[in-house]
Each structure stands twice: as C-alpha cells, then as structure tokens.
C-alpha cells in the first residue's frame, strides 16, 4: 500500500531523511520508531503529500504522491503532529467540513461523521468549540478527521503524545480496532506503545532505517535477549560477606556470572541486590530462578526480590541506535529524550 524508494529530504545543510526505503503491505500496522529529530515527522509529511521530497519516489496505493497527488491524498487519513485544528469551529461542523473536502458524497456526510464521532468517542462534544477542547479531545478530533472518509491508509504522527494514561489506553485500543480495516503507519518514540499496537517496527535514526522486523525478531537480533538477566535481592542471616555470596552464586551451574547492582551494597542496608546472567549450559533451561531460590532456602537467606528481567524494546532500540558510527552520546533511557 505504501512504497518508499530512496527518499531524501534536507532542510538546508542538514539531512532530515537520507535514502530511506521501505514498504508497508495492506492490513499491516507498522510502527515508526526513533528518537526526536530522527526524521519520522518529515517522512510522514512527505508520505501524506504535504512536503515534496528532494529525491526518491513515494507510491500510495499505486499512485505517485507527486504526479498523482490528489488520488494518492484521497486514500490517506493523516493525523499531523500536534493536531492543528480551527479553534473557531465546532467539532461536528469541522468534521462535516473535512468530510466534504475529502470528497465524501453529500448525502453520506452525516452518516460518516456520526460513525467517526462514535468511533472516537466524542459524540458528546460535537457542539463544542474546538478551541475549548482539552488536548486529549483535540487528539481524538484529529483522529476522527483522519478516519472520516474511511481511507485505506492511516498515517498517524505521534497519536498518543500529550495524553494522560487513560486516554493513551483508549487511543491504543482504538488503533488496534482500526487495524482490521486500515493499513496503518504510526510514529512514536514510546517503545512499549509500538510493541503493543504494531505488527512490524521500523527503527529510524538520523534519517535512516537501522532495523526492521516484528518486535520479537528485533529482540532476537539485538543480541540482548540472550543476556536477559535475573535480579535477586537478599539479606543474609549471618551477615555473610557479599563477596562470599557472589562466589556461592557463581558456583551454581545455572549461573554464568553474577554481580552487585550498583549502590545497593552499602553498609547501612543489609539488603543487597545482585544481577545474575543465566548460563545456557545443556542442563539448564536458561532460567536460573528455581536454582537460586533453592540455594537461598538452603543457606537461610531472606529473599525479597527474584525477577527475570526481560529485555524491553527500549534496550533493543538503544542498542540499534547506538550501533551507528558517529552517533552522538545519548542517554540510555529513551524516556529522557521525550519532547518537553
């Protein structure tokens, strides 16, 4: 449904997108993932026909976005970042205007607008001025606008940004529901969101695709999953030296290596936290937790935490993004780079 070949776009001397190629098939929900300034919004603006690309080819449902722009645009529902709307219009009035603009036939407008209002759960604010709506409602009006002519393709730029947790959940549910009827490309810098809603993920950094695949594939490929670690927090009854505990842990067959978690082995706290990397010897299943538990019981340690720490997309993402040579130093947590 969407095919992108060699897309390049620069703002003055800086390249926003460099030789980007990918395609999205009918019915797919693809997540576009990247830190801020990676080129997500630029790519989406080009796909939606708003910005012309410097080079490359974009085809939407077989129509070239430059030469058959109107036909291509008629097949896209686009939700821009920050959802710009006319504040002086009322919700229902705005959607009727957008439906007419998108070529919905006059006698079907009321029906389509009602559907969109219903779907996005904004029927009760239909007579409210858009200028008086909260961010969450504005977002939903934008989404209703994208949906109103039932386009084949939805391009959603950061659909959940600026929403509260309840609204985020609602929007995610909505997107999941839409996936049955539409091909969706959505961008986000929140990884759990992409993991939850998307069947495929494109990781983009500095205007280039650095990885693509299902969340599971990416996890496998990043190499981090293999080292999925276990955390254990214990208190030794006889105040056994923590170095001794380490030796004991490392002697277990299921454990490849063990270490302190920084900052927890202070003299004031008798609780100490360890990070254990499981070994993958033939006899172990890869999960050292039962063995660790038995060991703790045998030695009379009090156990406060024993958890498998599955690597999240976040770490996978970081590993991909940091792999690019010349990438600037960046914090390991993506959340810290979110927009202010």
């Amino acid at each position: 449904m969407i095919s992108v070949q060699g897309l390049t776009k620069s703002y003055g001397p800086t390249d926003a997108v460099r030789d980007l190629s990918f395609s999205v098939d009918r019915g797919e929900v693809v997540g576009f993932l990247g830190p801020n300034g990676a080129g997500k919004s630029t790519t989406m603006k080009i796909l939606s026909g708003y910005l012309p690309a410097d080079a490359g080819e974009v085809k939407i449902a077989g129509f070239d976005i430059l030469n058959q722009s109107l036909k291509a645009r008629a097949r896209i529902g686009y939700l821009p970042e920050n959802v710009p709307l006319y504040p002086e219009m009322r919700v229902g009035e705005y959607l009727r205007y957008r439906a007419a603009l998108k070529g919905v036939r006059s006698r079907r407008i009321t029906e389509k607008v009602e559907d969109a209002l219903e779907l996005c759960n904004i029927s009760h604010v239909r007579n409210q001025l858009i200028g008086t709506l909260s961010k969450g409602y504005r977002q939903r009006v934008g989404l209703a606008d994208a949906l109103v002519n039932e386009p084949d393709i939805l391009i959603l730029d950061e659909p959940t940004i600026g929403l509260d947790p309840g609204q985020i959940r609602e929007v995610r549910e909505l997107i999941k529901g839409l996936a049955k009827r539409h091909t969706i490309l959505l961008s986000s810098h929140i990884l759990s969101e992409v993991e939850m809603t998307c069947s495929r993920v494109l990781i983009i950094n500095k205007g280039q695709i650095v990885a693509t695949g299902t969340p599971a594939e990416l996890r496998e490929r990043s190499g981090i999953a293999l080292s999925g670690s276990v955390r254990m927090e214990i208190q030794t009854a006889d105040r056994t030296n923590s170095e001794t505990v380490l030796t004991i842990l490392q002697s277990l067959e299921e454990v490849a290596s063990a270490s302190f978690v920084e900052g927890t082995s202070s003299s004031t706290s008798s609780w100490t936290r360890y990070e254990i990397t499981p070994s993958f010897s033939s006899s172990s299943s890869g999960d050292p937790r039962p063995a660790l538990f038995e060991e703790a019981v045998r030695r009379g340690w009090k156990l406060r935490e024993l958890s498998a720490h599955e690597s999240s997309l976040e770490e996978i993402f970081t590993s991909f993004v940091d792999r690019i040579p010349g990438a600037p130093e960046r914090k390991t947590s993506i959340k810290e780079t979110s927009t202010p």
Partner: protein
Amino acid sequence: MRIFWTLWKREVASAFQTPMAWVILFFLLLVTGFNFYAGVSVLNHGPTEVTVVESFFNTVFFWFSFLLLFPLLTMRLYSEEYRSGTIEPLMTAPVRDTQVVLAKFLGVLFLYAFLWMPTGLYFLIFWWQTHLTSAGAIGAFVGSYLLLLLMGMFYLSLGCFCSSLTRHQITAAVMTFAVIALFFLTGLLSFLAGHVDTVMQGITITFSPIDQMTQFSRGIFDTRPVVWYLVMTGLCLFLTLQSFQARRWRS
C-alpha cells in the same frame, strides 16, 4: 467545484465566527455614517456642485477607512494557517492549490462586499426622507460601487499575496498597507504637479483612486481603470499561487 464551495464557505464562516468581521463592520459603519452626515450637511449650506454620492465617496473619512480595511481583512488569510499549522491538514486533503487560493480570495471579496452593502441604505434613507435622489443618475451609484468592487479586488488580492509570504499576521498587514499606500500616493502626484499635462494625467488616472472615484461617482465610465484593476488582480492572484506553492517546496 464542490470542494471549492466547501473551502469558500469555511472562509466566509470563519470570518463571521470570529469577532473580526463584526468589529470591522461596526467601525466602518461608524466612520461612513459620519461621513454621510457630513456630506448631507454640506447641502444645508446652500447650493453646491457635488451630489451626495460624489461627496460621500470623496472625503478623507472614506479613503482613510477604505485603505485601512485591506490589511485587516487579508492579514490572517494565509499567515494564520501557516502559524497554527492548519495548512497541513488542509493541503493533505485532496484539494488543489488553485482551489485554495481562489476560495480564500473570493471568500474575502464576499466579506468586503458585505461590509459595504449597508452603506447603500444611507442613500435609500436620503431618498425616503427628502424625496430627492442623492445622485444625478443611476449611473453614479453603479459607477461608484463598481469602482469600489474593482479597487477591492486588486487590493484584496495584493493582501492575499502579502499574507501568503509570511506566517506573521502583523508583517502581512504592514506589507499590504505599505504597498497599497504606495499605489495610492502615486496617484496623488497629479495634485502635487499642479498643472497637469495630458501624458501625466494619463498615467495618474491609472494609479489614482481619487481621480477615478471623482469620475465614476459622477457616472462617467472609463475603461482604463477597469482593465488596470482586473489585470492587477489576476497578477496578484498568480503571484499568490506561486508563493503558496513555493512555501512548501522551500520548507
């Protein structure tokens, strides 16, 4: 065509949904109302050579409010869409650039015509009260309002162009006012020159709204200003389309 009407309706509606159109209408009627009163009171001082229509369209009050109208009407047209970002949903809908440019121009032209419409009441009231027509012939009315429309087309399209250049409404307003004032003041050169030869007169009649209005409000029809305003409107709209398209290519 349907898309054009949809765009046009929104342009007109948005002007009336915000207080702007009503505020402009209020002050325009205030100023022109006083202007009309002044025109009528001239008649009370004995016989004059000018009719009420002639004096109405040729006072400082009229020209002052007339010139101020254009920056106010056009400044928001494109600038506001750029600034608030609504240009993005607008241009990602299946609409042509020409449809947007024409809808915005004809929308504001309708608003402009709407603003002047109540002034026609003045002349009706005059006729009703005095049983005298306020001009020598019907042509004086037609001429005055036709010229008003033609000048409006040119200056509004100029305002459209200025607004399409920038995302700052005030910048657009200042540019519009400056360019219109330039044309207007060029027209005043004929007054400065004192004795005007025919060549100079030929040039200034093209530029001078005051000279043109003096003629048209007497019912004298001249094709030169008509052609001039129509051509200039077309040129400004063409430039607007170019700058509107270029803006996206540049960004």
